[in-house]
């Protein structure tokens, strides 16, 4: 990275905004912060950051609405969702709205910076818990899958997710499977795409519960 990623923060908790700002301040370029959906959408369109750190739970539609609104005009802005919630429907719904990663707010500063860099480079960021949810959602063989390309994981993707769920970093996954970190990243990105586009009924149900479809 020659230049620090330009990061925008969206969270309705001022305390948390201030905390993240001071944690990230030296390493990334925090170009702004907003604490509600409408002003966030407006300011992101105006400043066009590389990565938006967005809180999942906010009044008036939450992070998912910020993501889908911005994507209409600025599809290149990347989103990393931050939340205190571990409920699978929140995680899945936010990913399906277009976030490239999901981390919980208990994440340490180093890991958060690592996740931002990864998302900025176009990769996906899966926490162990998210990997667990995905394995769960894709667990059974889809009965008469409408699109086997999208509705099932390959054995290799399953292996990669399993290691991430076991708490392995990408580097460790690569070493364990004897593949390169780049290959691990491409497997995870492919899983992210399936997660966003698949019509498997669990995913569709989770998303429709949050009125995203």
């Amino acid at each position, binding site marked *: 990275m020659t230049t620090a990623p330009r990061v925008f923060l969206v969270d309705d908790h001022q305390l948390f905004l201030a905390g993240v700002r001071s944690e990230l301040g030296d390493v990334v370029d925090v170009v702004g912060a907003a604490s509600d959906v409408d002003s966030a959408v407006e300011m992101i369109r105006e400043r066009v950051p590389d990565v938006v750190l967005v809180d999942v739970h906010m009044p008036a539609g939450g992070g998912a609405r910020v993501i889908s609104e911005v994507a209409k005009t600025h599809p290149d802005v990347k989103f990393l969702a931050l939340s205190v919630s571990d409920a699978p429907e929140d995680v899945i719904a936010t990913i399906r709205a277009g976030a490239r990663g999901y981390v919980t707010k208990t994440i340490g500063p180093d890991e958060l910076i690592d996740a931002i860099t990864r998302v900025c480079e176009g990769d996906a960021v899966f926490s162990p818990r998210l990997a*667990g949810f995905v394995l769960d959602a894709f667990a059974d063989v889809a009965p008469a899958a409408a699109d086997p390309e999208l509705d099932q994981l390959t054995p290799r993707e399953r292996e990669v997710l399993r290691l991430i769920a*076991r708490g392995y970093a990408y580097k460790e996954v690569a070493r364990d499977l004897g593949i390169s970190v780049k290959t691990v990243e491409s497997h995870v990105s492919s899983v992210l795409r399936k997660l966003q586009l698949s019509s498997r009924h669990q995913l569709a149900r989770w998303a429709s519960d949050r009125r995203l479809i």
Partner: protein
Amino acid sequence: MVAGVAVGLADALGLEPNVVRCGFVVLAIASGFGVILYGVGWALMPDGAQGAARPESPRGDAVATAAFGAVVLGGLLLVRAVGLWPGDVIVWPLAAALVGLALLAMRTTPSATTSELPDWPLLRRVPPDAADAIAVLVGTRRGALARIAAGVACVVFGLAAFVVSVDSWRALRGTLVATVAVVIGIALVVGPAVSRLVHALVAERRDRIRADERADVAAHLHDSVLQTLALVQRRADEPREVVRLARMQERELRAWLLSGEAPAANANASLGATLEELAASIEAENGVPVEVVRVRDCGIEGTEPLLAAAREAMLNAVRHSGAAAVSVYLEVEPEQVTIFVRDRGHGFDTEAVPADRGGISHSIVGRMTRAGGRASVRSAADTGTEVELVLPLAKAVESP
């Protein structure tokens, strides 16, 4: 109908709600007596009876229904004798029609979904034709048909009787118009007040329920979050302890938010939930976060050795590895259960531990082997330690 009195009464008596409604309506038409009864019922109805847990299905007991019908009939005869009576020609056909409607609207009773006769010894000696007739009466599928037929017949009879007696209807018309006019007049005068009263009652009940909910939430927050915050303030100079308290409270609050109640010890708990409770208690005792990720779940029965081994592995990790956090992964597959316990601590030399002693060989590997599973330990100074536990499932206990 309005306040759920009929449903409440039906629950109390073990009757079809529609039967009770029908009784109220008939009495109301006859004299207004039903309205009074309904009002009394509403006033007496215990708070929150509506929507409270009801038996899955009313008993639909023929005897109880008949008894209730007799009570209504008795009420009708009583008001007839007293003289508050619009006339035989109106009440009886309407009553018949309403009974018909109630029969039609009646829910299918559980016994009606099976076409088999109950296995009573008495029935085995009954000839087949008679058995069919009994089947109709006790409410088999054919019984449902018979019920519909009877309902239609009652409605038709009621209407027909009404039309046939159209002559006497003319004679009655004067009285009836006068009665209707008086009723409308009273309704106009009293109506707004009654409607206001009803709204006030509904609003009051809603407010009370809301206040109760708020009190519950407040009580819970007070017992948990506020207590923890107080502890955190007092121990501000012990970062490890503060983190431990915050983590514990976070877990507890999240469980409460997601499930709507405090996590409770449950004898029939799932393997995943038990593992998470175990991890939470180890975390609380040692102050090292233990993250559990689980993919699918199964019942706890038969997995006790696995849980015991996992507990030992988690304890080793938080006590001896020096790692800041421990990751636990549980995956249930149709034929086996796998648990990984991983830390990024300083690791140890697996060869250096004598095979005949030490916690690992005895309480982890030995335990898993005795239970028909296996355990393996990978450890290195730079990557930390990972314990893998695999237990084959004897039978398919998996639940989705």
